[in-house]
């Protein structure tokens, strides 16, 4: 059981075309909406039944998020799709844009109807040139087919989508930074409250969802929330695309049911590269805590099980590391990433990420001392929970988990001024 939702057209020739999508029953749910066969309340109810949770990383229940929108309040409202996909290890949204763009368009249209928005924006990561072109072409096809625009199919419903190509900042994946970026400003998160549902894009009520989340919506309406829920398990409905990268034979995206054992996913990805031993797994993208091989092998790929294992499902970006990996170097790389990607707006993140990065770099290069380990935890603790957005937490959590699970490697670097694993 795989590729049931977002990747359902993947087995066909040119799966991204409008014809392919229509032949697979695409836009049926949007047409039903246009014919008045769904009320917004019904759609939200189905979503709640489905237990669909935000696929961008935070895992917030989608039905609940949509119900926050003051949809009957007059004035412009917006639905925004977050295709910024900047989390290291993640590449699932890219493949949805490339191979099933129409399902995203349909999902956005349904979302727009549900929350009372006539305009949608898709914010696509700056480096995604090919997916951008393909999504743009899909919008034009949908417009030409009369599926987007004014008074669509005589329903009296208006809906259209604009695409915004980002400038390459990781932080623009944060929903309010993304809003600022669409507005033409520097991509910096806003402080909340107010939340986007009351004060979002151009100051109007706005709902922001991840690409995979919105792409899942048409199938939930087609087959029912219960069907989707049963694809996965209670509170962890549906399937989920996992991007598996690192030391495996067949890295790639795998759309599999929630709750699939990690070991099975590892097998789907062709097993460990050159048969080496698994050492560590980052299960949800670089911001989520790293797990040791033992713990990872015992977990299932769903929100609750990964959480129980001590990490987070995040965006489903599974980074596999084998026994040849230097964990100090890995953390140095991650910390440098957050240091470079901090927007610089608020103090703990602006100052703290650089401090973390420099300390880890020093340790890696044999210039660390024992006090550095305590200081790393201290600095991470002073960032975590003290910043405007989650980037600060994202920078702090890997530090904490790497030190917790692999402290011996850090000590070795400090004591021997060289790496434990690399010769």
């Amino acid at each position, binding site marked *: 059981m795989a590729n049931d939702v977002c990747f359902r057209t993947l087995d066909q020739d040119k799966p991204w075309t409008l014809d392919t999508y229509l032949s697979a029953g695409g836009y049926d749910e949007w047409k039903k909406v246009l014919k008045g066969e769904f009320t917004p309340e019904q759609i939200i109810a189905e979503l709640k039944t489905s237990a669909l949770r935000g696929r961008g990383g935070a895992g917030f229940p989608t039905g609940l998020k949509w119900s926050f929108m003051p949809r009957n309040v007059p004035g412009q409202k917006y639905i925004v799709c977050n295709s910024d996909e900047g989390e290291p290890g993640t590449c699932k949204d890219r493949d949805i844009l490339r191979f099933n763009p129409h399902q995203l368009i349909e999902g956005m249209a349904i979302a727009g109807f549900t929350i009372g928005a006539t305009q949608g924006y898709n914010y696509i990561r700056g480096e995604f040139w090919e997916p951008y072109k393909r999504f743009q072409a899909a919008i034009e096809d949908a417009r030409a087919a009369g599926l987007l625009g004014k008074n669509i199919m005589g329903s009296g419903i208006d809906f259209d989508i604009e695409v915004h190509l980002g400038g390459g900042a990781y932080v623009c994946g944060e929903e309010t930074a993304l809003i600022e970026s669409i507005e033409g400003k520097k991509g910096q998160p806003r402080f909340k409250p107010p939340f986007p549902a009351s004060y979002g894009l151009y100051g109007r009520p706005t709902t922001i969802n991840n690409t995979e989340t919105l792409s899942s919506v048409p199938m939930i309406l087609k087959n029912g929330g219960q069907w989707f829920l049963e694809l996965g398990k209670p509170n962890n409905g549906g399937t989920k695309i996992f991007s598996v990268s690192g030391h495996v034979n067949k890295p790639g995206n795998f759309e599999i049911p929630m709750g699939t054992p990690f070991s099975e996913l590892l097998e789907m990805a062709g097993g460990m590269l050159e048969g080496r031993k698994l050492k560590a797994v980052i299960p949800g993208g670089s911001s989520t805590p790293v797990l040791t091989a033992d713990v990872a092998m015992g977990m299932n790929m769903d929100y609750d099980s990964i959480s129980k294992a001590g990490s987070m499902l995040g965006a489903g970006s599974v980074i596999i590391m084998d026994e040849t990996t230097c964990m100090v170097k890995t953390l140095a790389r991650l910390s440098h990433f957050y240091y470079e990607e901090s927007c610089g707006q608020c103090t703990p993140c602006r*100052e703290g990420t650089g401090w973390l990065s420099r300390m880890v770099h020093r340790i890696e290069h044999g210039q660390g001392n024992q006090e550095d380990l305590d200081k790393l935890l201290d600095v991470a603790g002073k960032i975590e929970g003290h910043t405007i957005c989650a980037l600060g937490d994202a920078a702090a959590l890997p530090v904490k988990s790497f030190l917790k699970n692999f402290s011996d490697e850090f000590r070795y670097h400090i004591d021997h001024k060289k790496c434990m694993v690399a010769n």
Partner: protein
Amino acid sequence: MVNIEINGIPIKAEDGAMVIEAADAAGVTIPRFCYHKKLSIAANCRMCLVEVEKVGKPLPACATPVTDGMKVFTRSPKAISAQKGVMEFLLINHPLDCPICDQGGECDLQEIAVGFGSGVSTYTEGKRVVPDKDLGPLISTDMTRCIHCTRCVRFGQEVAGIMELGATGRGEHMRIGTYVAKTVDSELSGNVIDLCPVGALTSKPFRFTARPWELTKFNSVSPHDCVGSNLHLDVLNNKVMRALPRENEAVNETWIADRDRYSYLGLDHEERLTSPMIKQDGQWHEVDWDTALTHAATKLRDIGQKDGGGQIGAVGSYTSTTEEHYLLQRVMRGMASDNVDHRLRQQDFRGQDSTALYPNLGQSIVDLENLDAALLIGSNIQKDQPLIGNRLRKAAIKGGKLMFVNPKDYSFRMPVANQLVAEPTNMIAALAGIAKALLDITGEKPPEGLTDLAPTVSDAQQAIAKQLHESGKASVLIGNQVAYHPAQTELCSLAALIARLSGACFGSLAEGGNSAGAWLAGAVPHRGAAGETITSAGMDWKAQLDAKLKAYVLMGVEPERDSLSGADSISSLQAADTVIAMTAYVTDCMRDYADVLLPIALFPETSGTYVNIEGRWQSFTGCVKPMGDARPAWKILRVMGNLLNIDGFDYMSSEEVRDELKAACEGKPVSNDFPWTRPDVSAGKGATMSDLEAFPIYAVDPMVRRSTALQQTADGVATAKAN
């Protein structure tokens, strides 16, 4: 109101207030850097993190709205640990160069570090170094000290109305700057120095000249425009080292214009006159005060006896104190001369009898913020009266419609609903059209003579009329350029008519800092002190010059630069038998026409009172001794009064002078009307752009003209080039 608890103490807080506001009101101190009550909330410094009951993470007090029953802990272990953590982060890349930093001693970072910082740094990595920017002659930068609170950026966006500073780069590479190298040119730019919580932005002229703790603060009032901005003058060793805003919500809020901030630099200009001088046989001689004053009094008495008081004229400055104006006109009238004036920049005096007790706004300055519509006539408001501009900008941002009838298409840094541009000679017609449109709306009969102007109504005039008529709170305001206009009377008359027909408040933005005080003091030829009627009016300043009088008394003015008829004034002054110049500065030009030079004090050197455009009497004391042998003009005039045997010149203090005048003004109806007078169709034909723009922002008075730093700004340089 909601009930909250801060540190266990029950507090009532305004609905929608942020925790930090409630705490401030209750006297609970929460450390902060980015929060400023006059700016939007950024919540970026994270210094104000506090614990809120039932919330896991500490929350920024500046961005957390109060809710009923909320329990806030500002000193709990969780709050303190968060605050200390932020403090540590702020300090790791800060240079800690307090000993050589101008901000040292009045630095928020330094002060808060005492409470929340550690004695020893555990940061052993390299520190960030940021290149400095050249922001112009007023603001000095040490960008390595910057803590990225963005107050300066928000000030530009939200108050000055121009985003001259911004934050480029991300993360640790974030920099405050101008993006493309340029200077900061707004007329309010110096306020970023006060806003900067560290020493990143400091005053360039003040740089390295004093430490804050050595300075003594004196309260003062700025004389450079009709706002009367409240100042702190900081003094060291009898020298004014800098000027800072003194908070007064009703007048200048927390701001001052750059003109108010940097005019003090003119105090010790090389042209300061430091001892009394008399000219004998074409040679200047330094003399003592007794000799100089006796000489001056004798000259005046002789001319008075020989040619009559009417052969003596006097003019005071727009920046002279009310007391000085009062004594000047008393001395003049004591010599039987009503030839006393202060309106150097006016050329049309036909309407002077119609003018209110003193030119006034007809409302409070604060009221301007709530206008639904305003029509300003002949005003480049953000340059002429920067802080009035700021109030109107607030109104415009709230949706108020700002409209202008101007001789030129000025660019304003605020939303302008309509700017009707009319050549200087066409401004009457432009107003007449608006008046006609209003008459059409109200159905009223045109007042006498209006039809002589043959008004036509364009779409813009129609729109302005309609907007004024339909708006709830509207105002029609006379700007500086109307005062300079040869048809001031017609323009005022039409403006008042427009105000009456549209139900708007009529008001004036007086062209001088202390115009209101001068009028009240009787420094006008047609009225005595407190608006007292006099039998026959004396000569206004222009008439005095035209009449080529035998003697002139000048107080604080350089007629060649302060008056519209600059060239004419020189020839009349040169032709006079005696010119007694009470002046702070002396130039070759003045040495040429004057016969007696009496050095006077500038406003930081004397006590006195300025009356602002809303009629607020603001008294201040001197904060430094006058330079050299200079004396406050009121003291000089007091002695002159005695030497001339005028009764009642026994004042012991400037307060006595003020109290005498104030008592006379008590209960006098002010009125801000300007009764309709039949327009002269030929009036205003000689109006020129050069007259209307003769006094740009940094050329308004002798002191401002001698502030080197102001003259080096973009506005200052532009003025210099134009001349």
